[in-house]
């Protein structure tokens, strides 16, 4: 019955872009080819074919900003929802546990697009809030359910002895959770949360069907005026690609730093 404090086993939840691994070293990694390739291609299109492409690049930057706003807002809110629901999922209180489990099961069983429509119009019916805020809440509500599973797995990956040691020092369960369990769990859940962030960045394109002028919607607006569908969506795809590649690299660097920390 010896549970030695073992190095935490990584937990794999989420469906985001592949976060570059340290072992993918070398000058010509898939990441480098894709990232710098898309940047070069963007520059080539903007300056090599300015009459077709320059106008597109001029038209969409405010869309990028909205995409960022939605993604950042939604991930922060989703972490809050996820933490609450994740703690609920491991609660011994049957009512709280039931409610949290129900939330997770229901949300995970409905397509994101359908939820977005539903929550967006449901919110619109009862409260008057800006479109972008409804979109953020809808995205966060959905991602919170996935985040809950990450937090649950992360908290449960901390050896049982940690809670017992904290309790035996006279801490309450809440104090033990805040001071001992969660700080360790956060380290475990950071990589999967990074995955979720990237998945959310991509899924945020779904809000373009609501009245939110994100990157994809700006593209659609431009294309429907100029009928340059192919050119426009080429640019949109490249920009999404550059963003996700950039953030996945950032997250992998963060992860390495964190591992070196101890």
């Amino acid at each position: 019955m010896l549970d030695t404090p073992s190095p935490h086993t990584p937990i794999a939840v989420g469906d985001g872009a592949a976060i570059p691994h340290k072992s993918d070293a070398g000058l010509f990694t898939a990441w480098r080819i894709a990232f710098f390739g898309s940047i070069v291609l963007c520059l080539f299109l903007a300056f090599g074919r300015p009459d077709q492409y320059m106008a597109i690049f001029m038209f969409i930057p405010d869309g990028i900003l909205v995409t960022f706003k939605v993604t950042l807002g939604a991930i922060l809110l989703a972490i809050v929802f996820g933490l609450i629901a994740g703690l609920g999922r491991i609660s011994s209180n049957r009512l709280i546990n039931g409610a949290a489990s129900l939330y997770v099961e229901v949300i995970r069983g409905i397509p994101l697009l359908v939820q977005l429509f539903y929550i967006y119009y449901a919110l619109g019916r009862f409260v008057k809030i800006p479109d972008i805020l409804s979109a953020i809440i809808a995205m966060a509500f959905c991602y919170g359910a996935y985040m809950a599973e990450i937090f649950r797995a992360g908290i449960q990956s901390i050896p049982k002895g940690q809670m017992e040691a904290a309790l035996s020092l006279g801490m309450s369960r809440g104090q033990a959770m805040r001071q001992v369990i969660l700080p360790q769990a956060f380290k475990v859940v950071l990589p999967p949360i990074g995955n979720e962030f990237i998945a959310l960045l991509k899924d945020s394109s779904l809000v373009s069907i609501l009245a939110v002028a994100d990157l994809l919607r700006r593209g659609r607006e431009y294309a429907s005026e100029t009928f340059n569908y192919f050119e426009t969506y080429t640019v949109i795809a490249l920009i999404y690609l550059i963003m996700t590649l950039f953030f996945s690299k950032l997250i992998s660097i963060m992860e390495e730093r964190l591992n070196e920390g101890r």
Partner: protein
Amino acid sequence: MKAASHPMIEVSKVSKFFGTFQALNDITFDVSDGEKVVIIGPSGSGKSTILRSINGLETIDGGRISVGGMDVSHLKTDICKVREEVGMVFQSFNLFPHKTVLENLTLAQTVVRKRSKKDAEEIAMELLRKVNIAEKAAAYPAKLSGGQQQRVAIARSLAMNPKAILFDEPTSALDPEMIGEVLDVMKNLAREGMTMVVVTHEMGFAREVADRVIFMDHGRIVEEGTPEHFFTSPTHERTKLFLSQIL
């Protein structure tokens, strides 16, 4: 709330089931102030379970446990209060890996005892010196050997000024050459008059330190007595068999 007439720890008629398996069967014993009780027995005999029940890490199904006059099993008892008074040292140390050695000692002092950071650190350093590991105060537990970690764990529990400490096989996870340094710390504590309940396989320690030895098997107390009685003239066949295997 502490009546002088009460023993420090009172265990009476305690039973406990894991599913249909009876882990504890009608366990009764007392530990008075300053007494050192060593519990021995084969694995699965319930010795760790009774220890964990004393500070409420396990709930009991029958009987009564009281610590310093507080009824552990009573729902109205604030179990945190009981645990503040009774320290626990685990087989697997259970230091907090995200905190330095010093922070391991100060955390509960500041959070539970509400001491200032400065006071907590002073107390912590004093205790680290006492267990001969002050030079590692700034290190993280992962950098320490097992014996060092267990000494820190003992200091961590002492930092709460407990009235008694429960040791749950404190040397069983250690390499042989590190057992001595941990036992030395425990012997020092015993000399200072700390009330101790120790589950261990270290018979030398039991012989030297214990005021009383309790032998358990299959969830029951088979025999109880002074070390002299226990190691030289045990009455029960089961005890004799166990001692012949282990000595």
